[in-house]
């Protein structure tokens, strides 16, 4: 069906086959347990669970035989963007970093922390490709996590399942696909480069029946909450306050609101 894992069971079976040690597996299991706590109920645009996406990214990193902390960080790479920490806040915060460190260790958290700092858009991709030499080992690994993230999204036609997504996805690949491939090559991963090139070609030719398209255009992740559950009051109030402040001239005060 697919050469990359989509569930924790497939991922651990793959990593065992590839010769990761038991110590490595424990590190990756800790990351998975954190991922299911922070991404529960989250779905990406195609309707696939966020957990399946992060497992897919980790599986790609595992197939490249990268160190266990890199594979583990693949499982929680976007945790500061999409993870629900229950504090009503957004982005990176000291308390959040502490929570992640306690769960998966300093090394893994460092990758996860640097992931959102690596801006990946039409303006920055070519600059990143041209400036790989001065990058340290951690940043090179963070870049590999980004490429694995991209590969997993394109491989599953993640952008195709909502109205208007097909065009923007194809445009992105036409403009930046070759840059992504060259970045992987320059990092010293020809297998990843070949895989990215293959997936880009397939994505440009792929078609999705209109019956499968999501009628609501949502390019980003969404949360579906169990119906017996409601948002906690302090979280709801804090988020409402943040929204109000952002829309007003007191937007600079947002950072001073304490977490719940």
């Amino acid at each position, binding site marked *: 069906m697919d050469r990359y894992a*989509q569930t924790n069971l497939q991922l651990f079976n793959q990593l*065992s086959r590839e010769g990761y040690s*038991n110590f490595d597996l424990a590190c990756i299991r800790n990351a998975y347990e954190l991922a299911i706590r922070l991404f529960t109920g989250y779905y990406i645009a195609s309707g*696939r669970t966020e957990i399946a996406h992060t497992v897919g990214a980790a599986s790609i990193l595992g197939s490249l035989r990268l160190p266990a902390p890199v594979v583990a960080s693949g499982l929680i790479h976007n945790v500061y963007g999409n993870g*629900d920490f229950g504090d009503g806040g957004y982005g990176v915060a000291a308390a959040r970093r502490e929570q992640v460190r306690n769960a998966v260790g300093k090394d893994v958290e460092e990758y996860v922390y640097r992931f959102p700092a690596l801006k990946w858009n039409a303006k920055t991709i070519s600059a990143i490709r041209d400036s790989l030499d001065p990058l340290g080992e951690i940043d090179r690994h963070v870049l590999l996590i980004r490429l694995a993230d991209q590969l997993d999204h394109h491989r*599953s036609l993640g952008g195709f399942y909502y109205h208007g997504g097909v065009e923007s996805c194809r445009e992105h690949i036409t403009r930046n696909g070759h840059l992504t491939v060259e970045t992987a090559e320059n990092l010293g991963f020809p297998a990843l480069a070949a895989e990215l090139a293959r997936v880009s070609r397939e994505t440009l030719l792929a078609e999705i*029946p209109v019956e499968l398209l999501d009628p609501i255009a949502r390019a980003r992740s969404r949360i579906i909450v*169990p*119906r*017996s559950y409601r948002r906690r009051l302090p979280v709801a109030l804090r988020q409402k306050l943040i929204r109000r402040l952002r829309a007003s001239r007191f937007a600079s005060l947002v950072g001073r609101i304490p977490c719940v």
Partner: protein
Amino acid sequence: MVSYAQTNVQLFDQLRREGYSNEEIACVRNAYEVAMRLFTGLFLPSGKPFLDHLVGTASILVALRAAVEVVAAGLIHAAYFRGDFGSIRTTISKAKREEIKNSVGAKVEEVVAGYDAMDWNSKSIPALRDNVDKLDRIDRYVLLIQLANELEHRMDFADLYSDSAERLQRYTERYLPSMIDMAHGLGFPSLAAELAQTFREAASGEIPIEARSRSNQPRSYLIPPNSYCMRRWISVGQECVSGVHRLRAALRLRTRFRRFVDRFAH
């Protein structure tokens, strides 16, 4: 071991490859939307998302070229006993059936209700095996979903990840022959072969303890998002219902004890 779909995208790809029409794929997509709402945040003891298990079950049915209503029902087969409808009642009800009917149609709902009604235990399994030929159309569909569900639960050494290897060994010895007979009786020899191979592989596999789930949950469990809590009226209602159940059980025990004492007194 054959690999089946574990995500909606893989399932839709498989449906297209197997030649299901766009209308049929749309029906499965509707069922997936329902599954997302009912089973969000639910996990198996192995740590695998419940939704992936449902997709896997539907994928097995697609591989068998089952009718589209069976595939769609496979995607939501656990709706009436594990689905969260946002109500106090945890079993099937008229309102729940109506809701499912409105979402996926009466044909699919009939199969899902049939799945909920079919007993699957030490008494019913031998009886089902001996009466496969006498089952009506819906019950045959339900039995097929039941076997696909069994197969999916054993895929990827799932039992070994949840520390239930010994239980699997006993379960395999006791029920696998019956399940193989049922698959043959339903006219699916490939499913029978797949069940035999997967159960044996699952029972003989080995998983390092470091990769196992530490959830220690005997059955599927919910991990709600951290920013959310259970609605007060539902938690109070469920407490009341379980209190009534406990009281009933205690009264039943008391009655039995009295009868026992009376018998000795006479």
